[in-house]
């Protein structure tokens, strides 16, 4: 094992320890905020595996999360299926269903891909309300869906465990040559093809991984909330929050989306006393825009750079 790997593993261990002890120190309300941050981190990681790496921007992630959430919700709420069964089925549906939908789109380049994914989100929004409202609950959605566990602390541990499991497995997966190949697509797709690799296969694999995580996150999320409504899910603000989490933290990393999700969620909560409604997104969005324009590598890099600078200043003084 090389030294940097040891260093990273140590950082992971510290991070996990701090997060595990967190319920001892903070209020239930804060915990609920962090639960949302955990789910947001899952969605952001899912988005990043596809879009952050390969540069194929998906505006349709709410669509994938929606398939996962709705499938599991319908199966457990309407058909009384146990959650242990409905969640795996939902993940499977998202991975396969999402892939079938996106398969034609994966052959499109850049902006066209983004457009098609955006159209999928809108399509899903419309369909959910019109087709079989007796199943989906139509515009009003569903509430009273079975939850996995009760109480902020339990839900916190559950969401955290899920997030960390996903983060570490993605971290391990992205460290392999597969991860390098995906990043290479983001830099120059033609040269990847020119190196004898099928980019369609790679993109498909990235997409399926992404859809798998989105489905998993979506299914767990719906059983945490206990309710689902199309308006909240297929919303531009939700899409924006997912994408910005990944970008503001640092795209094409794992720590980036996690950090970004935490940062954005806490920022959003901190703004609540000043601006209660959607207006918060004005400040929130402006900060995101400024960070994105001036530090495209993200906040994690910004923090590390600042630390390095401080360290060099201190060492030059002493």
């Amino acid at each position, binding site marked *: 094992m090389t030294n940097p790997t040891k260093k990273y593993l140590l950082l992971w261990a510290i991070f996990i320890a701090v997060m595990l002890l967190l319920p001892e120190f903070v209020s239930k309300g804060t915990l609920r905020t962090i639960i949302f941050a955990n789910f947001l981190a899952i969605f952001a990681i899912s988005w990043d595996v596809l879009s952050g790496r390969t*540069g194929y*921007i998906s*505006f349709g992630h709410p669509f994938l999360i929606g398939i996962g959430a709705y499938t599991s919700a319908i199966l457990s709420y309407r058909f009384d299926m146990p959650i242990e069964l409905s969640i795996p089925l939902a993940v499977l549906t998202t991975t396969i269903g999402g892939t079938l939908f996106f398969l034609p789109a994966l052959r499109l380049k*850049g*902006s*066209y891909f*983004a*457009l*098609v994914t*955006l*159209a999928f*989100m*809108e399509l899903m929004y*419309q369909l959910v309300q*019109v087709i079989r409202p007796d199943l989906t609950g139509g515009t009003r959605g569903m509430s009273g869906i079975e939850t996995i566990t009760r109480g902020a602390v339990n839900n916190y541990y559950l969401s955290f465990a899920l997030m960390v499991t996903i983060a570490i497995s993605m971290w391990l997966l992205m460290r392999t040559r597969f991860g390098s190949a995906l990043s290479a697509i983001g830099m120059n797709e033609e040269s990847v093809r020119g190196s004898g690799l099928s980019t369609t296969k790679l993109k498909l694999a990235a997409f399926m991984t992404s859809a798998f995580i989105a489905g998993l996150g979506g299914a767990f999320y719906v059983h945490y909330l206990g309710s689902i409504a199309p308006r909240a899910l297929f*919303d*531009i*603000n939700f*899409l*924006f929050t997912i*994408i*910005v989490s990944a*970008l503001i933290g640092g795209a094409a990393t794992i720590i980036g989306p996690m950090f970004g999700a935490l940062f954005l969620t806490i920022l959003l909560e901190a703004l609540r006393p000043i*601006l209660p*409604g*959607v*207006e*918060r*997104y*004005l400040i*929130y*969005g*402006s900060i*995101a*825009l400024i960070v*994105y*324009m001036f530090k*495209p590598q993200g906040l994690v890099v910004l923090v590390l750079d600042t630390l390095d600078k401080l360290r060099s200043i201190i060492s030059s003084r002493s």
Partner: protein
Amino acid sequence: MLQILIQGLLLSGLYALIAVGFTLIFSVGRVLNLAYGAYLVIGGYVYFYFAQSLGLPKPLVMAMAVVCGCLVGVLKYRLIVKPLKGNHVAVEISTLILAVVIQAGIVLLFKDSPKILHPIVSGVWRVGGATITFNILTAAVSSWLIFGGLYLFVRKTHTGRAMEAVSMDTKGAVISGIRPDRINLITWGYIWRLGCNCRGIFCELYPAFPGYVGCAVNHCGCGGYRGWYRFDLGYLAGGPYYWIHGNYFNLFDRR
């Protein structure tokens, strides 16, 4: 049925105009302008505030919507699009963020509730069983007039030809002595004008309310995708689509 057909036919012009605005940017700059829906809404709110709340004359307010639109469009190009030049992904994402910022800004200024906008032109016209408001008729006619103007602009003026050249091949245009960044600037400014115009005309048809941003983003997404190739083809392709979409909208959309 007749009502739906006529309404759809008339509205299609308006939708197509919206689609062209979106397509214009896409064909020239090769980037999706996801803030485009927000542009429309700004036009609507300018009209709402100045014409209805302050009671300024309607033609003046329409002109104001256009001017303020151009201004912000140019600002946006200078501050966001140009610094990120060459990075399409970054521009697209920053326009998404901008859409959210504008939407939130509007909520901050005007609150979340829908605003009822009065018709620019009042009166109705009855044909058979169908009712056509003069407002829709005006909207349709002016849409097609703007189309005509746009077509002539693209075909006949030097700037228009230059825009077309950039949309077909940026490098080729550079060789011919056209400055693509300038053309991009013109287009972004122009797009604002179009966007705000649309919304100005649009204003009675749908009550202006902030949630519309997201919806408009999606609509423009569809229109843009269908009419992507070149902007003069854009509205030809966008027209029929929006004709159908117009019907669909009337049938199902009760938002």
